[in-house]
Every structure is written in structure tokens, then in C-alpha cells.
């Protein structure tokens, strides 16, 4: 077997392991899916009426909630990765002729799947709340592609945080900024309504171009967002997360 196919086979085996973990712990999935849905109901049904965003609030907020659902699904990954490292099982894998990245890839793929399930639930609830996107098939494909890219980038970053953290608790806490970021973006209200300082932050942080691109794609007007910035941010974060994760993994005994 070539190096690549060995790595792929090892990753598939590890993915199966992580999937079993997720299914044994349904609370994690329930939590990752339910919380964003509750947030959606809060924003659309409770606060949304008071926000003036120039369009139906559910149309405005759905792209932001899609991103929020991704970031909310990360916490359990950081904890799970850290758990793996602090228990003896990781030394077993390391002392075997198993491709080095497979343990981590399994976590990344499971995280991506979990986040995309949450996103599917968000879309379903959005339609129930009167979401009326103008996007065609190509637009939806773009939305899906960008969400996959964002999820994978965020998952690598989270895996790295989980590896770098000393304890499972601090690993879970390390992802809190990722959960807070959507609030400091154009997810729920346009950035230009925010105070000085916060506004600049919101305009230049990575989630804003992603959200704006999703918004443009869903509105059938892709030129509204900055797709290049969105993809560049995701690719950059994925690369940083990957390199950070792999070097930390090598360092830890």
C-alpha cells in the first residue's frame, strides 16, 4: 500500500471510532443541534422584530445562524481530543505503525458531520419560519461548499486547541471565543450599526466575509459578499489549525 492509501485507510478506521463515540453519547449531538435552534427561535421570534435590517429578519439572520451552529458544535471536539491525549490510548496508537494524522483526521471529519447536521436543522427551521431565499441550485451548492470549508477550518483549529490544552475543561473553554465571534460580526445586526471599535472588529474578523458571502449566495446575488476573502480566511485558518495541530501532536508524548 502506498503512504497515502495507508493514511486514508487509517483515517477511515479512526473515523469509524469517532462516529461510534458520537453515537454512544447522543447528548453531544442533541446539544450541538438543539442550542443553535433555540438561538434561532430567540433571535427571529423574540429580538428580530425590533431590529431594522431592511429585509425579513429570518432572511437576514439565517446565514449568521448557519455560522453560529458551526462554532457551537466545536466545544465537544476540543474536549474529546484532549481526552484522547490524556488517556493511555493515544500512546497505543503512537507505538503502532499507524499514520500520524489519522487520529486527528477522524475528529475533524466527525466534527464536520456534526456541524453540517446542525446546519441542516437550521435550514429546515428557517423554512418553517418563513425563510424565502432566492438562491438557485448553484447558489445552494456554493453555500454548502463554503460551510464545509468553514467547518473543516474551524475543526482543525479546535483540534489544535484541544491538543494544546492542559486539561479537558480548559480545552472546552478554549473554544468559547469561537462561539462569541458570530455575535461580534454581521450575523445578527449589520456591522455599521455597531459602536466604534466593535464595528471595525466586526468588519475585519473572519466570520463577517463568510456570513456576507452566504447571505449573497442565498439572496441570489453572489456579488453582495466577498467570496474571495471568505475562502481565503477559511483556507488560512485551516492551514494554521492543521500545522498547529500536527506539531502539537508530535510534541506531546
Amino acid at each position, binding site marked *: 500500500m502506498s503512504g497515502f492509501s495507508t493514511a486514508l485507510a*487509517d483515517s477511515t*478506521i479512526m473515523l469509524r*471510532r469517532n462516529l*461510534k*463515540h458520537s453515537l*454512544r*453519547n447522543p447528548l453531544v449531538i442533541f446539544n450541538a443541534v438543539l442550542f443553535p435552534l433555540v438561538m434561532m427561535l430567540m433571535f427571529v421570534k423574540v429580538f428580530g422584530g425590533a431590529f431594522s435590517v431592511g429585509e425579513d429578519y429570518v432572511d437576514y439572520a439565517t446565514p449568521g445562524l448557519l455560522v453560529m451552529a458551526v462554532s457551537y458544535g466545536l466545544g465537544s471536539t476540543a474536549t474529546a481530543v484532549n481526552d484522547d491525549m490524556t*488517556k*493511555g*490510548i*493515544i*500512546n*497505543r*496508537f*503512537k*507505538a*503502532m*505503525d*499507524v499514520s500520524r494524522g489519522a487520529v486527528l483526521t477522524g475528529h475533524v471529519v466527525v466534527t464536520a458531520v456534526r456541524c453540517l447536521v446542525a446546519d441542516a436543522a437550521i435550514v429546515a427551521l428557517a423554512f418553517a419560519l418563513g425563510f424565502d431565499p432566492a438562491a438557485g441550485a448553484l447558489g445552494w451548492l456554493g453555500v454548502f461548499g463554503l460551510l464545509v470549508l468553514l467547518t473543516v477550518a474551524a475543526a482543525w483549529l479546535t483540534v489544535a486547541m484541544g491538543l494544546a490544552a492542559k486539561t479537558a475543561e480548559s480545552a472546552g473553554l478554549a473554544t468559547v471565543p469561537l462561539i462569541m465571534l458570530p455575535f461580534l460580526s454581521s450575523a445578527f445586526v449589520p456591522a455599521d450599526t455597531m459602536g466604534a471599535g466593535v464595528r471595525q472588529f466586526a468588519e475585519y474578523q473572519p466570520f463577517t466575509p463568510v456570513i456576507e458571502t452566504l447571505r449573497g449566495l442565498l439572496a441570489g446575488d453572489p456579488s453582495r459578499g466577498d467570496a474571495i476573502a471568505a475562502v481565503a480566511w477559511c483556507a488560512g485558518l485551516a492551514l494554521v489549525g492543521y500545522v498547529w495541530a500536527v506539531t502539537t501532536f508530535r510534541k506531546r*508524548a
Partner: protein
Amino acid sequence: MNSSAIAVTGLRKAYGDKAVLDGIDFEVAEGSVFALLGPNGAGKTTTVNILATLMKADAGSVRVAGHDVATATRQVRSAIGVTGQFAAVDELLSGRENLRLMADLRRVRPAASVVDGLLERFDLTESADRQASTYSGGMRRKLDLAMTLVGSPRIIFLDEPTTGLDPRSRRTMWDIVRGLVAEGTTIFLTTQYLEEADQLADRIAVLDQGRLVAEGTAEELKRQIPGTHVRLRFAGPDELDAAARLLPGAVRDDQELTLRVPSDGESRSLRALLDLLDEHLLGSREFSVHTPDLDDVFLALTGRVSTEVTAK
């Protein structure tokens, strides 16, 4: 060199400026059991971790299964199995799934029959489909070792395989190790118990503060330390004299008023000794049976008690 499963020369490892392994050398013949004996903190786990490719040495050469651990890491990994001090099982998976995971990663086929065979051999069939988190300590160790055996590695490292186990589980573990040896597997184990090394190992090396202070067969080591003996303390020098005349093989200590009588520690020989004293109307103030343990080995080899005991 070719007949050595493991060859270590000049192995050094330090954490910061604290030397954990200070230049150790040993060889393990293929198909034999080698025990590294030492108290906590002697450097046993560090040695295992370096030999099992989990840690890099600072200096020295380490060859496992004929390959250098630093340059041919992958070849070494495919020849070894490691069972660490803490059971490395996936608690969210069942026993069967844990073994299946190993079989898949080692590309062992047919996986199902290998897994079933190991479950049966380790008496885990009944609990095979329960999550490992529900297993007792002994069962976890067994599952852990079973996972190590998937794919029949030629060399197996066992880091304190019985620490924390009850005496019965310890016996079971010993039987398993003997079974592996009978199949021709080379075993490198670490232990804090002289008895365990004595029971299992062909050769024993004693590790103390990062140095090997002795190496040899169990018999060779025991010759260097006082064997099992009975210690008798008498009320006065007259009784001591009389008893010393009766027991010519005994070693006397006039200050302590004691006699150290070599014995196998069995009840029959103890009764014979007591009967002999009775016949001559001699009674000892104190009577104790002393079996050599790791502390005696340390006392004999290093002139001080083991660090673990000092720490208490």
C-alpha cells in the same frame, strides 16, 4: 547481535538537568523474558517509552527487532506491542470493538476470528459487548494486553503489568505471560516486585536512579542478597550461645542478641526448628520469618534502602 531482540548501549535521557537514565547497557535474547526491576522513579517507564519509540533518547544506541529505534521507527513499530502502566483501552467502545479497532489498524485478517480467539483466551467473551468503562481493573488490564497481542508482535513491552492488581489477577497475568513465552515471544517487562521478576524472567536487571546496579539470572541476583531466613532474638548471651551451638549454619549478632537461620520459610521446616529449640528448653523472645524483597536487593546492591521506602 543477530540473536538479540533488544540491544541497548550507552542509553541516556535527561529531563532538564536531571538525568533519568545515566548510560545503561543491556541485551535481551530473542524468545526470552527480561525484567527491569526498580522502585518508582528509577527510570523504568522512561526506558520502556524509548524502546517502544514513544520517546527519543538523548544519547546511546537502541536496536529493537534488529532496527534502530531512531532511524527505522516504522519497522520497530510493526514488530512490537506495548502495554503501558495505565490501561490504554477506549472506554466508550466495547471489548470486542477495542480489539476490532486494533485488528483493523494492524490489517489483521480475518479480523473477526482473531478477535473471538483473543476474547476467549483472555476469558472476556461474556463481557465482550459491554463498554470497557464498565470493566473491573483486572478485566481492563486483560483487554489491554489482548489489544497488544493483536497481530502477534514478536516483542512485547509490559510496563508494570500487575501493579495495582489483586493477587488472583496477578497470577492470571503471570500465566498469560508464560503462555506468550511458550509461543516464542520476547518479553521486556518492568516491575517493582522481586517475586514477579523471579517468577517470570530469564534475566533481571536492577535499575536504580538511572543506572543498572546489577544484572543476571534470578539465581545470580539472589546469591548477592540474604536469602529467606528466620530471625531469633534471645533474652541473654547464654541462650544465644546455646542456640548458636545447636544451629551451626546460623549467623549471630552478639549486640542484638539475634541469630539469623537460613530457611525455606515452609511450615514443616519452621516446626522442626521450633521443636529443636524446645527439646533443648530454649525459647526465643522474638521469632520472625524474613523473605527477601526488593528492599533487600537494594540494600545489598546499593547499601541503602530503596527510595520508595525512604519517601514513606
